[in-house]
């Protein structure tokens, strides 16, 4: 399954890069969501994938029975998902507020911080 996951991740990354290079900020946001999904899958697959054996210690035993899924990447991915959501929400708020102020979603026109005539301002 790792090989198939690698292919899927490649597609997700390619799609997110393409979207993040778009001028429309909403597309950028979609790219960000896909990218965080891809990153989670990379971490998950790097710890190897085990089918149908959750990392639980059965009642009455001291260690898991047989080979179980690798718990460490799962723990990392679990927090990464929640943090990714926080990041997404923040970016979305940023996008919304930007649109409310500038009335545009075109990132080429969002130049409040680095205006085109910056040279005159830098004096």
């Amino acid at each position: 399954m790792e090989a198939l996951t690698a292919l899927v991740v490649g597609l997700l990354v390619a799609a997110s890069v393409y979207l993040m290079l778009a001028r429309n900020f909403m597309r950028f946001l979609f790219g960000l969501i896909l990218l965080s999904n891809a990153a989670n899958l990379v971490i998950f697959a790097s710890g190897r994938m085990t089918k149908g054996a959750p990392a639980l210690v059965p009642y009455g035993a001291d260690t898991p029975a047989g080979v179980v899924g690798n718990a460490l990447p799962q723990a990392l991915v679990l927090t990464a998902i929640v943090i990714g959501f926080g990041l997404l929400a923040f970016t979305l708020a940023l996008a919304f507020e930007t649109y409310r102020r500038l009335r545009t979603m075109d990132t080429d026109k969002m130049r409040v911080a680095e205006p085109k005539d910056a040279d005159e301002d830098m004096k």
Partner: protein
Amino acid sequence: MNSIIFTAGARILVALLFVFSLFMLLRGHHLPGGGFIGGLLGAVAFIVYSLACGPAEAKSALRVSPEGIAIVGLGIALVAGLVSFLFGDPFFTGQWYWVGGDSYETSLFSLNTVLVFDIGVYLVVLGSILSLAYAFEEET
């Protein structure tokens, strides 16, 4: 979403979801669940409620501000870590107290900082996501 059925159903659904979220929190140490999942479920419960009845009513049903919940949660998590200093252990070492015995097998139940920390996580996730969701609903 002014459907009467949805509004009426939502109240029951919310209560169920919320209790379920606490259940997921508490069983997390031994079975799938835990603070993150519990917190997310709790947040979903209140978001459903606010979709049904509007953010204002959902907020008043919560009684305290979601940001406050999140901050308190972070504080609880921190305290759970600080407790280990009292016992001379490194920061965030889990501390266990067996009620009615001296080990897992002999005791009735345990008091431990690990669960306290997980409760902190629950509150942080719940509070953060609710404050986000309400802000989006009110401002957009």
